[in-house]
């Protein structure tokens, strides 16, 4: 386009400036909005990271507490406190059998059932756990 007068030139400058302002402003707003979105996303990611870290910290803490609660020493204390009467299994309290355990239990049961018929006065075995009242 050929510029024919200074007035027309000035008008074009004003128009151009207004267009530039409008475009620049819109672009600026778009950039600000974009940056705000980036900021929101980054902060969301940061918050999530913090939550994960917090959860991991809680898991580690609870893991430690569980381990402490399952310590043999603590379990023994509870055994005493709750009067459970549990005792460690030792060889002297174990009867080892050379035959099939099923056959042995079945034989014992049959012996109890037919004790009256055979005239033998057999009483079933009663277990008395340590500390339990008789």
């Amino acid at each position, binding site marked *: 386009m050929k510029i024919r*007068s*200074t*007035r*027309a*030139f*000035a*008008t*074009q*400058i*004003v128009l151009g*400036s207004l267009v530039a302002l409008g475009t620049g402003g819109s672009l600026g707003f778009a950039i600000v909005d974009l*940056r705000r979105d*980036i*900021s929101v*996303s*980054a*902060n969301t*990611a*940061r918050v999530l990271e913090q939550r994960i870290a*917090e959860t*991991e*910290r*809680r898991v*580690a*803490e609870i*893991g*430690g*507490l569980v*381990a*402490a609660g*399952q*310590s*043999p*020493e603590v379990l023994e204390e509870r055994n005493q406190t709750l009067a459970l009467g549990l005792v*460690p*299994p*030792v*060889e*002297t309290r*174990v009867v*080892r059998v*050379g035959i099939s355990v099923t056959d042995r239990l079945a034989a014992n049961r049959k012996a109890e059932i037919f004790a009256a018929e055979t005239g033998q006065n057999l009483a079933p075995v009663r277990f008395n756990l340590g500390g339990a009242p008789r």
Partner: protein
Amino acid sequence: MTARGFAKNLRLHLIAGAVVASFAVVAYRLVELHVLDREHYLSQIQDARHRVVADPARRGDILDTRGDLLATTRTDITLAIDPWALPEKIEAQKFAARKAAFENDQRAARAALAELLGMPAGTLEAAFAPAWKTIPVPEDTEDEAPDGRVRVRYMKLLEGVTEEHFSRIQALRLPGKKDPVRIAGLTHERRFRRVYPHRDLAAHVLGYVNKEDVPSGGVEAYADRYLKGLSGWREIERDGKRTELAQFRQREVPADDGWSVVLSIDCAVQHIAEQEMNALVAKFQPAKATIIVSDARTGFLLALANHPTFDLNEFGTTPLEKQRNIAAADLIEPGSTFKIVALAGALNEGLVTTASKFDCTLDSLVHNGKPRRFMRDDHRYDHPLNLSEVISHSSNVGTAQVGMLLGERRLYDYARAFGYGERSGYPLGREEPGLLADPARWSGIDITRIPAGYSIAATPLQIHYGMGVIASGGQLLRPQVIRQVLDTSGEPVYTFRPAVRRTVLAPATAETMARMLQKVASPDGTAKAAAIPGFEVAGKTGTAQKLIGGRYSPRNHVGSFVGFFPASRPRVVISVIVDDGHPPGGGTGYGAVVAVPSFRKVAEQLIQYLDVKPVTAPGVALAALPKEGVRR
């Protein structure tokens, strides 16, 4: 539409000039900000907003062989107060009504905090009271008045706050308020802290990490390179409220958490050993004692209990003396437990057989052209003892004669081969090599003393692994504690295998020795109380007088029993070593008195826990039983 229609020429020029001038001003300002004064403003931002934040790595866990936590890392929060923050915030409030409301809210919040922390409200209020401290005047640069008085800006309130407790503090709400209240001046610092859930269990094996995160002894120090991880860092920017602006995070190196280490130590076995140690200590009041349990086939340690011991969480208040792993760092004379060396050596060299007989009533014997006096036996024998009886009766005279047959050099070589006089390779902490002089420096009498375990010194671990040579079928195994290293996802990174240091005996010799040692735990042996029917307990008692003030004390002894079972297919080796034990009602702290009962109690529980099957079950011939993977 033409340009003429808009306005007059002058006005248009003025407007155009103003627009151009405005742009020019803006452009100049931009150039000024971004080019001319760039460094100045950047440095201001750098100082005010830019930070490099460390991201510490979490130390890996230490697990027992079943995966139970022996050591772990958790966060520890320290609450602190800036006592001047509250008056400053009150001062910053512009309106009197808001100032009063803020003060009331803060007072109510502090009262709630005191209740949550379980401390008197007055104590907390006193802690929040602004205070001054005195410093040398030249150092007083914090305010404009260099009078040597500065404000106390940090006061520790409470240490060791748990995450759960802290989350309740953060969620503190005042009645009628929706959001949690922020207590002015209350700050916190979070850092990793090492905790040991089982307290004193396996204390000398684990070691500990001190408050400066420096590992001290045990697995903590040895496996530090795996456990510690690699701390990271990130460059961040913060806003005026000191909140990170995540979008400006520039560079970030994430922390690499430490790997976990799986030990061969079994919590249950360790507890059995420590429980027995407590009973032993209560009964005999020894100066020191050690119980060691290891896998006979691999050499991996299953338990190592020492007396005295300590709570790993209270390491700061424990004397260093109690922190020493006496199983590896203390030397004792092994006494009769060493007799297996001379006897096994002579058998292995073919110098004697199980039928060889020795006159154990002799007082002396000529060796290298000179008469050598024997150490007397406690019993007088009415017949010459065969090799099996020499060991089951623990005859000093018989063993010395076997030692003479073997000769100084070969006795020395076998002692070294059994691991005496050199470090066993125990990886955790300081280990003594023991004392075993070269034969060139032996006195004439040493050939009668050394075969019986005198004139030498060894660590309990050396004695234990010396017996392990017989149990493993003739091989000296390396003591090992770490089984695996796991990465952060629990995948094995490295697995430790059993390590054989050397082959000492032929398998047949080891088997013969095992059978002879079985007789020690028989009615005729010195450790008849160690026998467990069906489980072929084999072992050797030891009682060594302690060298006190250069003389052997008749009252102070080291009593021990080192054994394994079942003799035909050994599963575990157990050592009980009691230093200066005093049997109730007086008497000598013989190995048979102070150590054998503990051996038996530990063994009985291990039979059940490790599911050791009886070898001599009713109606089952020994030969019919399958043999497990030992060198036989």
